[in-house]
């Protein structure tokens, strides 16, 4: 799991970034481009960035490696077919309403599963609590029908509590595509909000990981500062926040290259 985008059998140098040199340096120093690559860049601003494909292929750029086949996708660490996964890279069969036809989904994130522990324990307590109703004289003195009714109402509320918590976790997703980041906040069953920002508008990304449990299970918050209308997007309690930050970094580099090449996508 050393690199998110390297298929297990591939040599690392093929696809990953050399993080000893910053991405900006790589773009700004065309003299470092390997001379073997002479492919001209189509529609490019050739005076300022003569051969960005060469930079990308040189291994210095943190360019994403998109899986070309189903097999390649399945070999990528972090990919899973589990619809309840909280970290899924290049998710399969996933779609959302605002997605552009050419947009590719890179990451689907939810809160780490361990964050559900509190409500699961609470539900278990609520579930077994009626077993102790029999020791309450008031409950015992009620007619049998009323006892059954109260028990049914109790379990209905317990189910509703657990279901609401599950739905909140399930639909509270963070999506990273090759063009945008999305934060779907399913605050409660009757309130939700969806925020998105262009990758190109991201100014900086802060990873915050603190506390014993977060360190143990490797999850934390990601603060994405944008130049857009929504100044800050927060990915809360997501697993492997450093890897997510790396994905965003590489996508930003991709965007920079696209801008230099004069491409829209």
């Amino acid at each position, binding site marked *: 799991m050393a690199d998110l985008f390297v298929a297990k059998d591939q040599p690392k140098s093929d696809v990953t970034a050399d993080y000893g040199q910053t991405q900006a340096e790589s773009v700004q120093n065309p003299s470092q481009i390997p001379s073997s690559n002479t492919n001209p860049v189509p529609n490019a601003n050739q005076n300022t960035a003569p051969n960005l494909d060469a930079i990308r292929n040189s291994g210095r750029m943190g360019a994403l490696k998109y899986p070309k086949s189903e097999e390649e996708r399945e070999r990528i660490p972090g990919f899973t077919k589990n*619809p*309840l996964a909280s970290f899924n890279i290049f998710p399969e*069969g*996933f*779609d*959302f*309403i605002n997605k552009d036809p050419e947009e590719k989904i890179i990451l*689907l994130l939810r809160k780490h599963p361990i964050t559900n522990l509190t409500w699961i324990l609470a539900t278990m307590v609520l579930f077994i609590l009626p077993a102790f109703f029999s020791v309450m004289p*008031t409950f015992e*003195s*009620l*007619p049998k*029908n*009323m006892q*059954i*009714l*109260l028990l*049914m*109402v109790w379990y*209905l509320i317990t*189910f*509703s509590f657990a*279901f*609401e918590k599950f*739905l909140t976790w*399930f*639909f509270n*997703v963070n*999506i990273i595509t090759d063009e945008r980041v999305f934060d*779907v906040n*399913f605050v409660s*069953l*009757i309130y*939700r909000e*969806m925020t998105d920002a262009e990758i190109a508008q991201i100014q900086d990304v802060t990873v915050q990981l603190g506390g014993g449990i977060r360190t143990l299970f490797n999850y934390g918050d990601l603060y994405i500062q944008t130049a857009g209308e929504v100044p800050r997007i927060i990915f809360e309690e997501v697993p492997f926040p450093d890897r997510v930050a790396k994905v965003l970094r590489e996508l930003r580099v991709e965007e920079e290259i696209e801008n230099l090449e004069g491409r829209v996508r």
Partner: protein
Amino acid sequence: MQELYPGFFSSSLLFLRGAIIVGLLLYAIFSLVILKQVFLMSETIDVGFVRPIKFLATLHLIATLFILVFALFI
């Protein structure tokens, strides 16, 4: 208590039953909102596993209506 205050006990039961029925009526509306929200969310983001969730939301509404009917006729 039932033997000591039979009138108070039966009126308390009636009040309790009435409160439960009113509560369940409001809860049924809430269940309907949940169902609608689940359908809306599954259209907004198709993350898989939607059919079991829709089934649970529908079951929740049916269970609420069943308990409401039960409370009305006991």
